């Protein structure tokens, strides 16, 4: 069997080749070594990478803060997904209506422009004052963060449909509804998906904020709990969890997008 040569390596010498294969491993090893040495120096109570890894495995058996780990992960997922589904179902039609109908735009665009620069996290105290620290208020805050990018992107997707698409539609005798569903919607789908992707990233952030500021369950709560109970291993496990599920959702979403927008497949 003949070994395939990597075309990216053809013109390079042995030093380049060495770093090409060993570099990534060396950098991660250096990162872990640095982490380990800070932890071993003992000036701060930082757990070593090995301790964190051990905890990550053992944490799934038994309870953490009165609940099994899977419960914390599940409830965080549920919060983000509820907010996301609601925002997509309401926000996408809302954004499209804002792009499509000028009166609708004149009524709602200024309100959005006023609220937009306020970071969603800033609403947390007001929402807890209005609705208390319950499930509804948490999902409402996350919705604040997720709804906005979805509406704005759907809106700008409709606005940026090239004029020529409308003209082609007109030539082929499209009625107003045909124009909306066959011309505008497909051309703005890219922007709509970009909005949902942005929203998802922001959603994790607001989820963490709302869970860190007053919840008794969820990943954000665990991260904060680790900090206040001097159990940093728990915080690190929480960080890894949120990173892992964040990445998982992003990949799942890419998959969904390729399925719904076949023309984006390469």
């Amino acid at each position: 069997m003949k070994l395939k040569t990597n075309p990216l390596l053809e013109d390079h010498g042995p030093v380049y080749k060495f770093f090409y294969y060993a570099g990534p491993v060396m950098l991660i090893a250096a990162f872990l070594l640095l982490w380990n040495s800070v932890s071993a120096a003992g000036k701060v109570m930082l757990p070593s990478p090995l301790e964190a890894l051990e905890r990550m495995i053992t944490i799934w058996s038994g309870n953490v803060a009165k609940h099994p780990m899977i419960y914390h992960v599940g409830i965080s997922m549920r919060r983000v997904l509820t907010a996301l589904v609601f925002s997509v179902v309401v926000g996408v039609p809302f954004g499209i209506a804002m792009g499509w109908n000028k009166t609708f735009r004149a009524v709602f665009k200024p309100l959005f422009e006023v609220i937009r620069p306020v970071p969603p996290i800033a609403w947390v105290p007001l929402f807890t004052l209005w609705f208390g620290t319950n499930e509804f208020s948490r999902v409402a805050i996350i919705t604040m963060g997720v709804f906005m990018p979805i509406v704005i992107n759907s809106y700008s997707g409709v606005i940026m449909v090239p004029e020529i698409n409308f003209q082609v539609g007109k030539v082929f005798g499209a009625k107003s509804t045909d124009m909306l569903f066959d011309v505008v919607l497909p051309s703005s789908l890219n922007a709509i998906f970009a909005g949902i992707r942005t929203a998802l990233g922001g959603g994790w952030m607001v989820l963490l904020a709302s869970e860190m500021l007053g919840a008794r369950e969820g990943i954000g709560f665990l991260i904060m709990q680790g900090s206040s109970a001097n159990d940093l291993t728990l915080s690190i496990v929480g960080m890894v969890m949120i990173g892992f599920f964040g990445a998982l959702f992003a990949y799942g979403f890419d998959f969904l997008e390729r399925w719904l927008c076949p023309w984006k497949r390469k």
Partner: protein
Amino acid sequence: MEMDYEKIRAEARTAEIKAIQKQKIKYLSISVIVILAVLLVWQLAVQFELVSTRFFDSPIAVIQRIIEKISSKKPDGGLLHQHIWASAKVVWFGFLLAAVIGIPLGLFMGWYHLCDRIIRPLFEIIRPIPSLAWIPIVILLLGIGVEARSVIIFTGCFVATVLNTYTGIRSTNQTLINVAKTCGASNFQTFVKIGIPSAMPMIFAGLKTSMGSAWGTIVAAEMLASSNGLGYMIQMGRSFGEVSLIMAGIIVIGILGFISSGLVSLVESVVLKWRPKK
């Protein structure tokens, strides 16, 4: 006859422009009326006690509160400008640090394959972790001072800056690269003269995103671990049950976020003057 056609065409054009202007005025007035109506309903609802002042305060009371806060330390122990300065300092420091480190890193990763290959795995591990999740570790290593908060802001801005810069330089037009190579430019020269300018618009897009997220992060960081800043002020308003202070804080943060992204856009328009306008 030629003259008449010209005249008719010109008349049609002015009529069209007039109609468009008329429409613009119509929609602008709808927008203004909506905003005024919302403010009025809000004011009247509070005035006639349709909603409790425990949960809502009138727009006039909120504005009064903002003005009052300029000279009053109650109840959170700081004047408005002290809180603004405390927050803005941290936001800008973290943001600039992320720009200074993130832009070159993104450029190198996008241009030099070896650099991408070495750094990417570690970057992909750090990338999906939201900046707020770093708070416990940062508190442990750096305490709750200005540096600690700046590092938290940095972690959020850094990822957005690197990713956008990377995408920007990656989408450099291959034709331009080929032209540079044909003219005898070295790889480094092509990088500096073609790659970096091509990446500029995306770099600024990334900076704007990271500036937006920085204000959100600072509010949360100050609510969790700080004794000054606007996030702390809002949190104190919550603890003392003073809704006008919470609302005042939200409005001030909105204005500051707006000004900050405006500043980034201003720098962009100066730096990217050479770009042909659409």
